[in-house]
């Protein structure tokens, strides 16, 4: 299992409250990345501070799996690496900034030339989420994500999984069906209903679907070939009733 798949599964298990599997995924994921974090930290800070910084970075990463901006969006390994190193760099920057403010010496080497902080890690957004593909029009995407969260929260767990795998992971219906045990046609029906709800929510929020996510705009206007209008009327609506 790749780290990208692990992190995604971690999000899914967390969402579903499956604690034992969430623990397994979190530890497995942490194991895969901890050495890379240690090497990165050791290149930037004195060795005496490495474990502290790596520990805090792991905490931030695991905690971030509960935040919408950590959503997996076609993440690749390079993007995963950039995301986790960005978190580490921000932890380092925060730590040294705080220490300097308090006049504290860390590892006896504050101000030492071996402590190299990249400018972007000092000035960049705090713990920017791993959100590959985000660009300058990200503001609308953030709002879209919030709307997606609201819609998904009303779905039952099975339909949440379908949306997660299809919308967030961008997996084809066939793969989503294989993972969830549903028929591909049902996956399409669920997603068709989801895009319909999202489109309505975007319009209600004053966001033109076309101006928000290109992906959403494309999909909400073009349902899957396997789904026709008559099927939509039979769509098993996954909204939670309680």
């Amino acid at each position, binding site marked *: *299992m790749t780290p990208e798949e692990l992190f995604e599964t971690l999000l899914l298990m967390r969402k579903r*409250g499956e604690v034992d599997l969430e*623990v397994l995924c979190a530890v497995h994921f942490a194991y895969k990345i901890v*050495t890379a974090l240690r090497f990165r930290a050791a290149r930037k800070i004195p*060795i005496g501070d490495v474990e502290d910084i790596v520990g805090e970075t*792991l905490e931030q990463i695991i905690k971030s799996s509960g935040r919408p901006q950590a959503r997996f969006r076609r993440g690749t*390994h390079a993007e995963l690496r950039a995301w986790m190193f960005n978190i580490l760099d921000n932890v380092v920057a925060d730590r040294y900034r705080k220490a300097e403010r308090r006049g504290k010496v860390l590892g006896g080497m504050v101000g030492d030339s071996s402590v190299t902080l990249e400018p972007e890690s000092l000035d960049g957004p705090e713990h920017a989420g791993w959100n590959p593909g985000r660009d300058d029009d990200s503001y609308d995407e953030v709002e879209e994500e919030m709307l997606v969260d609201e819609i998904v929260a009303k779905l039952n767990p099975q339909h949440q999984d379908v949306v997660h795998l299809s919308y967030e992971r961008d997996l084809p219906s066939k793969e989503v069906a294989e993972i969830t045990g549903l028929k591909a046609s049902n996956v399409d029906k669920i997603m068709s209903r989801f895009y319909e709800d999202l489109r309505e929510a975007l319009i209600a929020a004053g966001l033109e679907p076309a101006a928000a996510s290109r992906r959403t705009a494309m999909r909400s206007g073009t349902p899957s070939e396997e789904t026709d209008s008559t099927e939509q009327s039979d769509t098993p609506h996954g909204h939670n009733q309680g």
Partner: protein
Amino acid sequence: MTSIDDRYQEIDAAMADGRPFGDIDPYAGLSESERDELASRLENLTDEWINRAVDPDELDRAVANDPQLERIKRAVEGESGMWPSMLPRLREREGIGRDELARRLAHHLGANDPEKVRRYYHRMEWGRLPGEGVSDTVLEKLSELLDADVAELKESGNPHPNKRKASQKQQSRTARTFARFVGGDVTPGPASVADDTPQEPDWDETDRLFLGG
């Protein structure tokens, strides 16, 4: 004088053996240009390493040998948010042992029963004390002792809001799906961690500080 090749091979062998790097400086004694070269090679090495398959035994050994992983495990499976990772880390940063911190905390709280404070504090580090029950007074004293931000400390003690025990049926279904991914057997663990929490009518002041929110 250690060459980059020697250093790289040493690290490669240690990774293959599953030895963590907590106290080894991979760049010690190297010039700036050598550090850059080694950093680049190590990045490639970890890229390969990160994508290889990990069997459950290897993972168990890693958790047993690496305090960072063991703490993350306790944090994710416990009821105290990230405290099982955060509190020992902050404590080590300040160079204070666990019992010593508990003793100072009891003193700062003016607690009549330091042993009870010690037990509660241990449960915070072990993820066995629900974060929402720990009072602001305790967290403020801890933040002073650990030189930490009290808001951050408080926020870190909250487990994820979606955290709940799934039904056995749902767990089994997901276990099967997950087992397909990881290629192993996944058996759900015990439902919860036992504790000796007294009932509310029997609470004293210390119980209220650690359980009453």
